[in-house]
């Protein structure tokens, strides 16, 4: 079963168009939506949540057609870039409010996340650090038995220790096979650690959406001379960079002659090369 299906989704603004997007997230998986600032990651999540109305296209979330309505949102855990909890409210007060909003709210789960993540429960949200704000948002998102997490830049601006804590929590969350995550970020290294699927967005266009492991098997980095690189079939080379020391290219492993020294590529390198190629 797919928890998320997006078909031909387009959103047009003056001066920017997102899409057409084709994305599918199978149940039990984590998908990383990678893109630079302004690539359309937040717009995609807002379209899923019904905050924006699509220009065209269709989507299905947790088996229900269209953007997430109140019934579907009961099963979603959402963390937005700004989190959005009222600044004057303490984390403890936030728990009381959420208990009256979510039908399946679990106060004990919330309190255990607050303790585990070491969030000051009696401090107003506005006085928390960026890391603690994000952790509070994640605690709220996880405390009503959600099936799908939608996280918009949930690790941006956090120090490496907190980012590691967040990625651990997400990994724990997907241990249950009916739990899935869509996580947008421009910090590719975080996504590389935990994602099963990766989607690259650049200036509103979907460059790629594929299983991470297949992507890493399919592509590699070839370092050679410019002459050797020119000898390769054009479809083998995804992106090339020539310097005075030689040439470097992202290549499709299967289209490169056997014996060529192709080294593994990271998702970050692949993303940077693909974005440069798309420019």
């Amino acid at each position, binding site marked *: 079963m797919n928890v998320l299906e997006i078909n031909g989704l387009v959103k047009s603004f003056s001066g920017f168009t997102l899409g057409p997007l084709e994305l599918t997230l199978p149940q039990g998986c984590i998908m990383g939506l990678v893109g630079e600032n302004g690539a359309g990651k937040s717009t995609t999540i*807002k379209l899923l*949540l*019904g*905050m*924006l*109305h699509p220009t065209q296209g269709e989507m299905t979330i947790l088996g229900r057609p269209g953007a997430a*309505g*109140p*019934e579907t*949102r*009961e099963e*979603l855990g*959402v963390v*937005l870039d*700004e*989190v*959005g*909890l*009222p*600044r*004057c*409210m303490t984390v403890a*007060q936030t728990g*009381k*409010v*959420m*208990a*009256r*909003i*979510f*039908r399946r709210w679990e106060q004990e789960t919330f309190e255990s996340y607050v303790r585990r993540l070491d969030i000051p429960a009696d401090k*107003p*949200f*506005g006085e928390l650090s960026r890391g603690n704000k994000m952790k509070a948002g994640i605690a709220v998102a996880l405390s009503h038995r959600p099936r799908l997490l*939608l996280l918009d830049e949930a690790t941006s601006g956090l120090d490496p220790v907190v980012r590691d804590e967040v990625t651990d929590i997400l990994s724990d969350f997907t241990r249950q096979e009916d739990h899935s995550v869509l996580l947008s970020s421009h910090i590719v290294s975080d996504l590389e650690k935990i994602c099963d699927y990766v989607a690259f967005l650049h200036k509103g266009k979907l460059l790629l959406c594929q299983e991470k492991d297949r992507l890493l098997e399919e592509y590699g980095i070839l370092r050679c001379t410019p002459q050797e690189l020119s000898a390769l079939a054009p479809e083998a080379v995804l992106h090339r960079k020539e310097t005075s020391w030689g040439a470097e290219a992202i290549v499709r492993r299967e289209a490169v002659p056997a014996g060529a020294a192709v080294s593994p590529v990271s998702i970050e390198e692949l993303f940077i090369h693909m974005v440069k190629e798309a420019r």
Partner: protein
Amino acid sequence: MKGLLLKDFYQLWKYCRMFLLCIAVFLAMIFVSGENLFFSLYPALLCGILPVTLFSYDERSGWKQFSAALPCSRAQIVSGKYLLGVILETASIVLCLAATAARPGASGGEVPAMAGLLWCVGFFSPSILLPVVFALGAEKGRVVYLVILALIAGSMAALMRASSLGAVASLSPAILGWAALGVTALYAASWLLSIRIYQKKEL
């Protein structure tokens, strides 16, 4: 809905304590001011503005977007603000009437007319303001707010020159009753209009 209201009451207590203190002072002034109508009308006017003030805090904190990700419909989000207006306004009117009736030398005859007048004053401005705020946001809505405030302040000044608490008693209860009914209908229409506006709005 209960959660949305609880959140608003937490915010009200934190951000609007000065407003609430002002209202308390004005209620106290009803006792000492004798016939001055201003002290009775001002709390009702102030309470009508509080849902708009809270909406601007929602915008600043990002709650406006976050609430759209919660299992609440847009209609519930809008209704939360209107319901808060009803609760605050009703409480303010009841307290004002109690203070008016209990003030030294009160005859009590002006209380029914005062109820109608306070109801009209209290519910008129949010009826106009809230749809504008839901359509354009609190920042742009503030311009409309200032225009309405100027109109009401002008009307109140004229009213105060022409009348006093005693004079209010002489106003026709039938006219005030119809006016209160009209303002109630306006508030209900505004409520429905805001829901329609907010359901179509992109956040």
